[in-house]
């Protein structure tokens, strides 16, 4: 029983990291109806930005809250700038092009970042700075709550609450929802859709930045292809929850994190990825719109 609860804690912690990345996919999809395949590589660049910045400041072996916050900020800023640049240079010129062209461009940007990463950062893995010591924060019975998991949980919950507030309680969030629902009507009311889309990329990318530092803390080996698998799983999480739906992305990510943890614990770690994509197949068969997604009925 203790084991089981321990696995739940680990699974939720993993799931909240997936959620941070899945939110970027789902937000961009919600507003542009495109899948931003480059998102996972923005996440990768975030990890490297934190890595180099920590070495630059000489804080790579200086675990503590200050290091954590510094690296979070650095990674968020770098990811936002990169996300903004991608939107400006690659996607905006294609705003009126067919959806397939934009999709292929997204794959192109993704490959570009992955291979440029190998040229610039080098293909061999680097050790992420020590953001925090992993120790048992407190114990309930035999269940250990470790500092990593608690940090991951706290940081991602704060990020998600901030996002929730942004989307549902602010003027720009209202404009984001309006553009996502009907961009031309929103522009009739004075919203500049391009600005809102750029802002969406900034928000989504900075969440990926948060995710990259948390992953770097937990699994401190980073390389230019690190975004591929986690990006794919976050994408599956977004589809699972209903792509375009913010709450769905978080739900999907938690399901992914928990099931992955449980498969590793009770079946075999060989099956962890197979299981993740198995979920995707099942969902696509039985609920193509995702758990919280709605079938859009087209009125003719």
């Amino acid at each position, binding site marked *: 029983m203790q084991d089981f609860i321990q696995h739940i804690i680990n699974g939720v912690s993993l799931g909240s990291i997936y959620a941070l990345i899945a939110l970027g996919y789902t937000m961009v999809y919600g507003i542009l109806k495109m899948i931003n395949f480059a998102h996972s590589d923005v996440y990768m660049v975030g990890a490297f930005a934190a890595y180099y910045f920590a070495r630059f400041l000489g804080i790579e072996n200086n675990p503590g809250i200050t290091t954590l916050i510094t690296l979070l900020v650095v990674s968020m800023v770098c990811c936002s700038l990169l996300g903004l640049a991608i939107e400006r240079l690659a996607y905006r010129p294609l705003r009126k092009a067919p959806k397939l062209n934009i999709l292929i461009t997204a794959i192109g940007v993704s490959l570009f970042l992955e291979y440029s990463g190998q040229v610039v950062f080098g293909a061999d893995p680097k050790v992420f700075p020590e953001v925090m010591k992993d120790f048992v924060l407190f114990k309930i019975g035999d269940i250990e709550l470790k500092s990593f998991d608690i940090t991951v949980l706290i940081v991602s919950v704060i990020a998600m609450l901030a996002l929730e507030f942004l989307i549902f309680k602010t*003027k720009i969030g*209202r*404009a984001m*929802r*309006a553009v996502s*629902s*009907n961009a*031309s*009507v*929103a*522009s*009739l*009311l*004075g*919203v*500049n*859709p391009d600005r809102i889309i750029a802002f969406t990329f900034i928000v989504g990318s900075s969440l990926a930045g948060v995710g990259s530092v948390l992953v770097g803390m937990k699994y401190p080996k980073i390389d230019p292809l690190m975004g591929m698998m986690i990006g794919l799983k976050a994408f599956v999480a977004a589809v699972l929850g209903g792509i375009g739906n913010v709450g769905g992305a978080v739900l999907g990510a938690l399901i992914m994190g928990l099931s992955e943890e449980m498969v590793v614990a009770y079946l075999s770690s060989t099956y962890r990825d197979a299981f993740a994509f198995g979920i995707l197949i099942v969902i696509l068969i039985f609920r193509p719109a995702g758990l919280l997604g709605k079938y859009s009925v087209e009125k003719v």
Partner: protein
Amino acid sequence: MSSPLLTAENLEVFYGSIQALKGISFFVNTGEIVSLIGANGAGKTTTLRAISGLVPNKGQISFAGQNLNVVPTYKRVSLGLAQSPEGRGVFPQMSIYENLEMGAYSRKDKTQIKADLEMCFELFPRLKERLSQMAGTLSGGEQQMLAISRALMCKPKMLLLDEPSLGLAPLVVAQIFEIIKKLNKEGMTILLVEQNARMALKISHRAYVLETGRIVMQDSAENLLNNDEVRKSYLGI
């Protein structure tokens, strides 16, 4: 009379290789209700889309003395042009209140916004009863009321109404046209696009009849109501 509030000269719009507007010219004076009437595919909605900049057009549109062709869509609302779009275009996943707030998106005068909200509630008391209800759950008539109110929240000099009667019960249509008349009496200039020619002509000062991208007739609404051609083609008499 002073120069018109809105003038369009030689408006041409292409959708791919199809020409939807073949060079139409019209004007709307301050304080008027002007109708564009015509059958499906005549180019009525396209005309409104051109005025708000949603489709690129050849020709010249000017509003309140300003050349609109150089103004992007999202800035036209601040000039005083508000539209209740075709199919109402309410944001279904947002509450009535949020939809109305979106109308005031480019305004900053908080007290005036509050006053305008109250005015909308006075016009359409039903909206006030359901402020937190999602717009997608409203009936067609209520959505039309919301779309008009949202356009009013832009504090426009001129209201563009696209088929406000579409898909609504006759009683509701009468109610909405009553409101349009009332708004005009209080000084609002209105450009109305309608298939329901009889209703439109009854409340308009002047009207243009569109046929496959061309204006085929223009006159005072009263004359058009008595015109044999119009009676036969559009009023079914």
